[in-house]
């Protein structure tokens, strides 16, 4: 825990600390669990070429996929799930699987495969942040990787063609969003009032879809109709990412507030106890406390009495 934790990830835009889903998941989890991460934006460097972004670097190890990074942080005692029951932990795993199977193909398609979106938004954004020769190669490679992933997991062999799966993956994604919305209901986060791993994953997948301006937007429109999911993203953005990815003050402020709250509760409890003890003492049948009030009154009376005694 003393070792500095450095996270390399893609930079931000459209009000988000990062445009890349997996990087967002790790950043959100770090904020929720209070892990002190130093964000190392890899824009304008050659780091993106290795393809395994986000990467967590510590003094003695390098951890690369979001699930592994979260496990590593948990082992370092930065755990955002400590208040969850066993069943809620199991539900988290299940919902993350649902996100990866049903929502991720459509998100990848919207960003990387849909021609209008890719050529007008995604490619220029990434190309402007990658140094020259690589900017001609890397966005294309990422796009092909996304297409590959969609076809291999959802395509039907041997006629691997994107047209046949497009309708199916968008239908699945809309269903997945509806299911998430039903599960969230009206509560602030998925498991009560404190955010957990599932909130980090949902935020990571949904926030880019919600915020980035696309020409072809039918999935985004569907998401905007589910107001509780949009509210969740906005809440997390406003509370945890107010000062941008570099500052830790919102999270720090939250922790200070939480500590203050705990301290005030303790002090209140103590003072309640003291009051109760005082009440008990007063109500108990003892002569001594009763004398005290009379003693207090008597000095004035005594003086007047003594004066009276003296006077005649």
């Amino acid at each position, binding site marked *: 825990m003393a070792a500095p934790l450095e996270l390399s990830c893609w930079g931000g835009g459209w009000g988000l600390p990062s445009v890349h889903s997996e990087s967002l998941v790790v950043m959100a989890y770090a904020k929720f669990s209070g892990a002190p991460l130093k964000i190392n934006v890899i824009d304008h460097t050659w780091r993106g070429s290795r393809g395994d972004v986000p990467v967590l670097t510590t003094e003695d190890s390098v951890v690369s996929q979001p699930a592994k990074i979260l496990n590593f942080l948990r082992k370092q005692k930065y755990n955002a799930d400590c208040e969850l029951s066993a069943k809620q932990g199991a539900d988290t795993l299940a919902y993350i*699987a649902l996100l990866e199977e049903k929502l991720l193909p459509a998100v990848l398609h919207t960003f990387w495969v849909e021609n209008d979106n890719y050529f007008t938004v995604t490619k220029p954004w990434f190309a402007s942040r990658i140094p020259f020769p690589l900017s001609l190669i890397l966005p294309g490679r990422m796009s092909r990787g996304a297409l*590959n*992933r969609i076809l*291999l997991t959802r395509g039907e062999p041997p006629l691997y063609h994107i047209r046949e799966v497009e309708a199916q993956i968008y239908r699945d994604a809309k269903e997945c969003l509806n299911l998430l919305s*039903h*599960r969230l209901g009206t509560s602030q986060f998925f498991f009560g009032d404190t955010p957990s791993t599932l909130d980090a994953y949902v935020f990571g997948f949904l926030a880019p879809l919600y915020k980035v301006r696309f020409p072809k937007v039918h999935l985004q429109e569907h998401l905007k109709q589910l107001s509780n999911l949009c509210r969740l993203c906005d809440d997390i953005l406003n509370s945890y990412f107010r000062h941008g990815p570099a500052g830790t003050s919102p999270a720090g402020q939250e922790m200070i507030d939480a500590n203050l709250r705990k301290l005030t509760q303790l002090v209140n409890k103590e003072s309640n106890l003291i009051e109760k003890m005082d009440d008990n003492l007063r109500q108990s049948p003892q002569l001594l406390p009763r004398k005290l009030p009379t003693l207090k009154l008597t000095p004035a009376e005594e003086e007047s009495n003594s004066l009276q005694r003296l006077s005649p």
Partner: protein
Amino acid sequence: MRKLRTRGKVTQPGQSPVHAPPRRFVPLLGGVATEPWPENATLYQQLRGEQILLSDNAASLAVQAFLQMCNLPIKVVCMANAEYMSPSGKVPFIHVGNQVVSELGPIVQFVKAKGHSLSDGLDEVQKAEMKAYMELVNNMLLTAELYLQWCDEATAGEITHARYGSPYPWPLNHILAYQKQWEVKRKMKAIGWGTKTLDQVLEDVDQCCQALSQRLGTQPYFFNKQPTELDALVFGHLYTILTTQLTSDELSEKVKNYSNLLAFCRRIEQHYFEDRGKGRLS
């Protein structure tokens, strides 16, 4: 036997099969709901004794369990080229009336269109949970089974290649087995499992079983009194893992750690397979 109206030819054992492309699955509309479930509905899978693999057997058993739970009669037919007859390339598939439907998800929807459903009594949040847990099983258990069969060199060499190519003459058996292995390895790489070691995969299986065990708790089924398609799917995978002999017992050991899952499998086996007289699970 009735000829199927698909492009893949139905072959008798002993003939070399035609490596034909499968027909595209056209979504069902309209007249499906009006026809009742026929008596001669059939489920096709690969040959039970020599050919079928762990993951395919799990999928087939899940569909059989689901249909038993819905009280719909189904006859199981084993064909060597079932994979090629299937409209999506995956087994099992069912042939009902004049429709062919493959894989558990579409079969559940098809059966629902016919008016039978196991999950009608669930509210929206429970349905969301059920779908999430089904994806968990597909994401972790099924992928782990595929990994173990095709990407683990020991198992692939000793068991999978031999079984997958067994109905075909040399050199077709080797060619088809290597082609399938290449496809599976490509998929594993695309979803990020290409760099995982066997121990990490077994750890994932353990995590998945732990989640299922915690969700099941002490209830008889996942959504208390009535079984749903989630129960059928979990039963299919766990029963197959427990009863299939591989090069090592590590996979079944991971499942055996959870006694409520074992009791769950036993309960479904007794209630839906032995009692109905349908007997014979592989």
